[in-house]
């Protein structure tokens, strides 16, 4: 059913080709490996008409995903709503604002379900029986859930100071969770070493070239759902910088395939002030990332001090004419509430970062009121409730007069 469109893994730095195996680093220069497609073969099979006949999942773009066989994991993932956000737009001064809402991505409520579906389908192709990841939350949830349905063993490595709720939401699916003393970057470094030691498919290490490609579907969907158009602006949260880079790639690919009315899309990156190494590099007009030693922000899912795709993200932002901003924790919380109150969407702290950044970018005059703008909401607020202050509601007895007293004369 699916002839492979993948030619090889190719080093992004020196261009050396590698076989389609569980590899992620170039032996010559340590550059990251990326999937190389035969775009002529893709163009011969993938058309807008063909896409439109397929089920509404991320796999409707399967020729642009790095599998050699039909997918076997996460078959119903993706194709989340792109919602017109007029009330939020009014508050911010925008007349053509959309939210791409992956806070309702199936099955674990974040865009990680896209990348994990690709990574675990690939893991099965490659014959892995156990998968693993380093994560603080969303990726852990998704790997554990998908491993359960795929019948794969799963190891999840987390920092040892995570909240119980997040650990529980990974353990429920049966993964073995191991806490590691240290920060997220420490866990990541350990996982890089473990990849050498065990024959496990580490979704964000040795399966990374495949895994990261799953993020492109978020970008494809935006373009299709806008009626095969590219927006003038996309605001993207950044941790490693991978999502922004892959959304940029999705724009390039659809442009190259002639699927879209192109407009030069500006990519804007959003980070938290307590961990904004990519935004800091963009501000210096540089690709040279200065790592942050001790990330400090409520947006824990974005707290990567040493973002490996920061180099590419900074380059993509600056090449597009976009910008990057780093917002405070107070702005994040305010933006989470604003999105909830205007659009009925409860996003996690990372979504608060996106909306706060959007607000800042509009205020700086970088987005004009009528320009088509998309804000990327990638995770669900029920996972990061500790970031918000609980306010106890007023309590009354079940008598109408008590409510009347509470509300006062304005409601009489």
């Amino acid at each position, binding site marked *: 059913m699916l002839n492979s469109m993948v030619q090889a893994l190719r080093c992004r*730095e020196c261009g050396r080709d590698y076989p389609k195996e569980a590899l*992620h*680093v*170039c*032996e*010559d*220069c*340590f*550059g*990251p490996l990326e999937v190389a497609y035969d775009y002529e073969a893709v163009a011969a099979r993938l058309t807008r008409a063909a896409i439109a006949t397929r089920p509404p999942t991320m796999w409707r773009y399967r020729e642009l995903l790095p599998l050699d066989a039909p997918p076997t994991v996460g078959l119903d993932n993706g194709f989340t709503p792109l919602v017109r956000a007029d009330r939020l737009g009014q508050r911010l001064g925008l007349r053509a604002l959309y939210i791409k809402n992956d806070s309702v991505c199936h099955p674990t409520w974040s*865009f*990680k379900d896209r990348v994990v579906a690709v990574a675990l389908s690939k893991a099965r192709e490659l014959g892995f029986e156990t998968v693993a*990841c*380093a*994560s*603080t939350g*969303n*990726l*852990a949830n998704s790997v554990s859930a998908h491993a359960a349905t795929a019948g794969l063993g799963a190891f999840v490595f987390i920092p040892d100071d995570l909240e119980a709720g997040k650990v529980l939401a990974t353990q429920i699916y049966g993964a073995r969770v191991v806490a590691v003393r*240290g920060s*997220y*970057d*420490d866990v*990541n*470094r350990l*996982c*890089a*070493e473990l*990849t*050498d030691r065990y024959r496990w498919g580490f*979704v*964000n*290490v040795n399966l*990374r070239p495949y895994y*990261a490609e799953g*993020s492109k579907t978020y970008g494809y969907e935006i373009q299709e759902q806008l009626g095969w158009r590219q927006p003038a602006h996309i605001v*993207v*949260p*950044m*941790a*490693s*910088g*991978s*999502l*922004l880079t892959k959304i940029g790639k999705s724009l390039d690919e659809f442009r190259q395939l002639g699927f879209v009315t192109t407009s030069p899309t500006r990519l804007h990156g959003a980070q938290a002030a307590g961990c904004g190494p990519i935004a800091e590099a963009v501000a210096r007009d540089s690709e040279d990332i*200065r*790592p942050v*030693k001790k990330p400090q922000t409520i947006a824990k*899912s*974005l707290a*990567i001090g*040493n*973002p*490996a*795709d920061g*180099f590419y993200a900074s380059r993509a932002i600056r090449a597009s004419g976009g910008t990057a901003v780093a917002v405070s924790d107070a702005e994040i919380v305010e933006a989470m509430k604003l999105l909830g109150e205007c659009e009925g969407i409860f996003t996690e702290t*990372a979504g608060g970062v996106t909306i706060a950044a959007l607000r800042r970018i509009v205020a700086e005059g970088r987005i004009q009121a009528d320009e088509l703008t998309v804000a990327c909401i*990638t995770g669900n607020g029920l996972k990061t409730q500790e970031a918000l202050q609980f306010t106890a509601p007023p309590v009354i007895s079940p008598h109408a007069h008590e409510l009347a007293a509470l509300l006062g004369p304005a409601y009489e």
Partner: protein
Amino acid sequence: MATVRIPTSLRKLTQGKEEVQASGATIGEVIASLESSYPGIRARICDESGALRRFVNLFVSAEDIRFLKNLETPVQESDEISIVPAIAGGQC
């Protein structure tokens, strides 16, 4: 002599050894010592100008040398040095 942990991608140069010993008072000297024992290894870790390649991270006893003094970072006999490919995390 400090202990240096070698990643898979460099083990062809170290005859398959996961750990090797290297002398030197700084990271720069340790790399020079590695090069004399395992010719070719420096070019894989450092670029033409001699600086650490963009996608290589070096840790001295779990501390990233970019937070220390880069190639000038002092090395003790008891230190464990890790050469780790820069990989991104699980998040966006």
